[in-house]
């Protein structure tokens, strides 16, 4: 049942990329070890030594297909007009499963955001959501913030992904461009500890104000207590032996 991937194989191609006729190089961002999510439990399966790389879809080459090319070209032109070359603003463009992700360098985020909103050919009026993702294995860029944008004018959706290291968890806030990002950034700060510089009031939003830590990080335990029933004890979910 479990997908057996040979370690270091080049043949692992994300499913969505196949549909689009693209074969992007995979981006390795960490490893998964063992057959189960926890270590130290009695693993008699023989899969304990398993090491599998976590490979996210890598950079795509032009043409990206659909409206993605139009967005990328418009963005490149508009950024060039304001004296910012595409390469210094955008790390890479990933087209996967019919969706496009622009990996934006954090120092260029505000310029890119403003261009995306204001340029008539782009017009991403709405910042739908900002969500954080924590990749502890992605050294130097552990914390990612993903901005989902919507253009009502052109009926388009794109995604911006911004990464920052764990020991310098700062990136610019886009609240000055899209006020709707206010609460979403507060939530991302609350859950992941990403500091959005320039946010008007970056305070906790879901957790109590005096809460220690950032619960959605991967190194933050789920919590819970063992449950005893008829003599048998079930450990809490994050200490339970389960597949991962």
């Amino acid at each position: 049942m479990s997908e057996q991937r040979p370690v270091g194989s080049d043949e692992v191609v994300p499913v969505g990329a196949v549909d689009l006729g693209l074969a992007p190089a995979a981006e390795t961002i960490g490893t998964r070890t063992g057959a189960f999510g926890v270590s130290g439990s009695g693993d008699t399966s023989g899969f304990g030594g398993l090491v599998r790389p976590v490979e996210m879809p890598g950079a795509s080459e032009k043409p990206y297909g659909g409206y993605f090319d139009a967005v990328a070209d418009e963005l490149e032109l508009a950024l060039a007009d304001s004296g910012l070359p595409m390469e210094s603003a955008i790390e890479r463009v990933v087209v996967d499963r019919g969706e496009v992700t622009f990996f934006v360098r954090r120092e260029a985020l505000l310029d890119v955001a403003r261009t995306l909103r204001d340029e008539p050919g782009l017009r991403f009026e709405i910042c739908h959501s900002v969500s954080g993702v924590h990749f502890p294995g992605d050294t130097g860029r552990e914390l990612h913030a993903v901005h989902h944008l919507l253009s009502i004018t052109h009926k388009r959706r794109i995604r911006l992904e911004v990464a920052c290291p764990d020991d310098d968890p700062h990136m610019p806030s886009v609240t000055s461009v899209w006020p709707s990002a206010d609460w979403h950034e507060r939530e991302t700060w609350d859950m992941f500890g990403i500091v959005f510089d320039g946010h008007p009031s970056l305070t906790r939003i879901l957790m109590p104000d005096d809460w220690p830590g950032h619960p959605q990080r991967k190194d933050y335990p789920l919590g819970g207590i063992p449950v005893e029933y008829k003599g048998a004890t079930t450990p809490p979910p994050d200490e339970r032996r389960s597949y991962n």
Partner: protein
Amino acid sequence: MSTTYTSGEGFEPTTGPDEAAPGYDTTEGRVFTVSGGDWDQITLDPAQEDERIVVNMGPQHPSTHGVLRLILELEGETIKDARCGIGYLHTGIEKNLEYRTWTQGTTFVTRMDYLSSFFNETAYCLAVEKLLGITDDIPDRATVIRVILMELNRVSSHLVCLATGGMELGALTAMTFGFRERESILDLFEIISGLRMNHAYVRPGGLAQDLPEKDDKGVDIKVRIQQTIDLLRKRLPDTANLLVDNAIWMGRTSGIGYVDLTGCMALGLTGPILRATGLPWDLRKEMPYCGYERYEFEVPTQTTADAYGRFLIRLEEMQQSLGIIEQALDLLAPGPVMVDDPKIAWPAQLAIGSDGMGNSLEHIRRIMGTSMEALIHHFKLVTEGFTVPAGQVFQVLEAPRGELGVHVVSHGGTRPYRVHFRDPSFNNLQSVAAMCEGGQVADVVAAVASIDPVMGGVDR
């Protein structure tokens, strides 16, 4: 709602406002209780004209739609600042999802926005299916049933909005009507999924099980759904007749909670709030999913951009939803309800036993009796689940309150790496300040009711 007043430094009240509740001194200044008729005495005092009162409305307040805390800064009856305090219903669903299989995820997401469970489930499952690359393989019957359930859910959700919104403004009959109609839909949900709420009926790959052939009284299920539609067609006008031309209702909602198109764009507002500004933006039309391009329906709009406009839109959307359900019933053809991929298809062979719903004995007899491989496969699929190739997707659909977005990240394992729900209530609540500031305290209730936030979705 307790009203406390903090006086400025050096202020000495000449007469106590209430002998039963006299003032007392604190390090912050003098505090005393004001009750009703004493108000003028306080506000006429020139020393207090600039004074602002901070009022905490909620989180335990009957008209804040659940555990929403509104922090209002008042000058007299006028709201100078309105802020929301949320998080009182935060249950860590997104974190919990990371410790369950992909299939178990539906059991959690259905509890987020508990009034629109089927939307949460479907959004999550569409996202997982997109990650798996099986979007086109989902059987048509499963998709049509999803549409039927979502549209029924839209009606029931709007009914709660009108019912509780009516109750909060004093229209109690609207509440009894709304909950009465909703009950008929929940009965239908119970017949179909076994549960009135929190169904976990939509699963990655299809549905947990097919529609039952007959309801509890032996009526064919399609006939039964049609009966419910007919009943709603007959009864929905009750609420409309009660409120649409009602002078009090119009007085309480017209011009209240105003947000224009520019405001909607800046604050990312979608759903009835956006459509009340005149923009017919409905994802079912603009970016169809689940085969919505096959159905004929209108996207109702209003141009008033206020609470009354949103109320009218919800009324009309319910009628449109009933039409979609009828069209979907015509499209409902026999067939499988789970994707034809044994590596993904969760065993959908369920039956009612003496101890409730479970695997059908026939299925168990087959895998136990005839095929060791099938037994192992069943065991692995249920305990381990299926793996999802690494990557990320964002799936959006039109929920009753606006655009519901799901950001799902997989690292190639049997459990989600990260699931984030962009709940429309969460985003739309940001507009409370824009809607309420400068208005009166009583209008906060009308404005919040017109946003229709569900705190389960806001706090997750």
